[in-house]
């Protein structure tokens, strides 16, 4: 199979775009498309200071690489979760994130959950009813809290995460089959900051397939954690991704179409009333000052109180 641009040997064939590219042209194409999405969804401008949430995985490190290549002012944030899983998962993730930053002269903030809160994510999950013993819910809540806090405290303009299209399509699928209209109303490439203390969030990779991001990381020679988080094995999101990939195998472009049709329907007013309702219903946590849906303490502060009880 040949590269459509130069006729050289293709290293990737994107059936949903009917596009095959060689290494050189693929490494040009991904940043070009990212810039297109940043502009299309009005994510940020070259003047903005961006905080990129990095996990040591292919998506977030590739995002950081692309944004700096494009000339944006992007610093990194690594959150140490204290997950070992028999292979030193968090230690390796942190090492690769630090190595990436150092080799490119980039600035990386590091927050250690065990150091700051006295327990690792797996330890926290055993001391709270949240997630029923599974750490993923505790992990998500903790990361969202820290990411927002760090971005606000350090006066960044926007927080960027490495969510790819498979991530977005899996979340959309899960929320659709359960008709979670509130969550559907909030899913978007850009999450606006509708409340004081809430950071604007963007997902510049939301239209790239997960496979495309892995190919970019490999071809760009980015060292990332190949191993999956030990707690993600058997997770619902991976199951949904597998289901969507079955569909994709029969109908190339099905995942992309699912996501883009959803965004179009939202633009045309689907979920509009709920979205408006959500914007006006945020409160400020009495303890940490971060936005929260219910009055009083936010879910994160309530969880920390329960853990330390």
């Amino acid at each position, binding site marked *: 199979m040949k590269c459509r641009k130069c006729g050289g040997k293709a290293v*990737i*064939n994107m059936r949903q775009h009917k596009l095959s590219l060689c290494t050189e042209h693929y490494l040009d194409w991904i940043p070009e498309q990212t810039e297109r999405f940043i502009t299309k969804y009005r994510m940020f401008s070259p003047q903005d200071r961006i905080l990129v949430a990095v996990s040591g995985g292919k998506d977030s490190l590739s995002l950081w690489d692309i944004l700096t290549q494009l000339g944006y002012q992007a610093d990194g944030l690594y959150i140490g979760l204290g997950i070992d899983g028999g292979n030193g998962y968090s230690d390796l993730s942190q090492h690769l994130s630090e190595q990436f930053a150092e080799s490119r002269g980039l600035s990386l903030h590091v927050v250690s959950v065990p150091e700051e809160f006295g327990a690792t994510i797996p330890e926290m999950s055993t001391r709270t009813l949240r997630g029923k013993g599974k750490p*993923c819910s505790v992990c998500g809540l903790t990361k969202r809290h820290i990411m927002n806090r760090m971005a606000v405290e350090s006066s960044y303009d926007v927080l960027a995460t490495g969510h790819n299209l498979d991530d977005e399509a899996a979340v959309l699928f899960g929320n659709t089959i359960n008709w979670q209209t509130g969550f559907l109303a909030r899913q978007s490439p850009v999450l606006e900051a509708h409340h004081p203390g809430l950071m604007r969030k963007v997902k510049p990779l939301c239209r790239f397939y997960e496979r495309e991001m*892995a190919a970019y990381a490999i071809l760009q020679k980015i060292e990332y954690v190949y191993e*999956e988080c030990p707690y*993600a094995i058997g*997770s619902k*999101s991976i199951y949904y991704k597998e289901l969507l*990939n079955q569909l994709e*195998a029969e109908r190339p472009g099905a995942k992309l179409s699912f996501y883009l049709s959803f965004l179009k329907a939202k633009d045309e007013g689907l979920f509009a009333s709920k979205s408006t309702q959500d914007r006006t219903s945020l409160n400020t946590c009495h303890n940490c000052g971060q936005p929260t849906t219910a009055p009083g303490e936010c879910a994160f502060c309530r969880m920390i109180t329960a853990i330390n009880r």
Partner: protein
Amino acid sequence: MPVILILREKEYEVNHGMTLRDTLNKIDVQPEAVLAVHQDQLITDEEILIDGAVIKLIAVISGG
């Protein structure tokens, strides 16, 4: 000689002459869920696997 595909330390032996996509389907690996490396180069799904090729498969799905 068979073609050998390696995914997460598990080896699969298959006959040569098929495309990568057909081969992955034959061993019940979703083509969308992996990238394939042959002789340190990524290869496309349409590549026909040659006699004796050793293909490293890289899982690309993550989640949580």
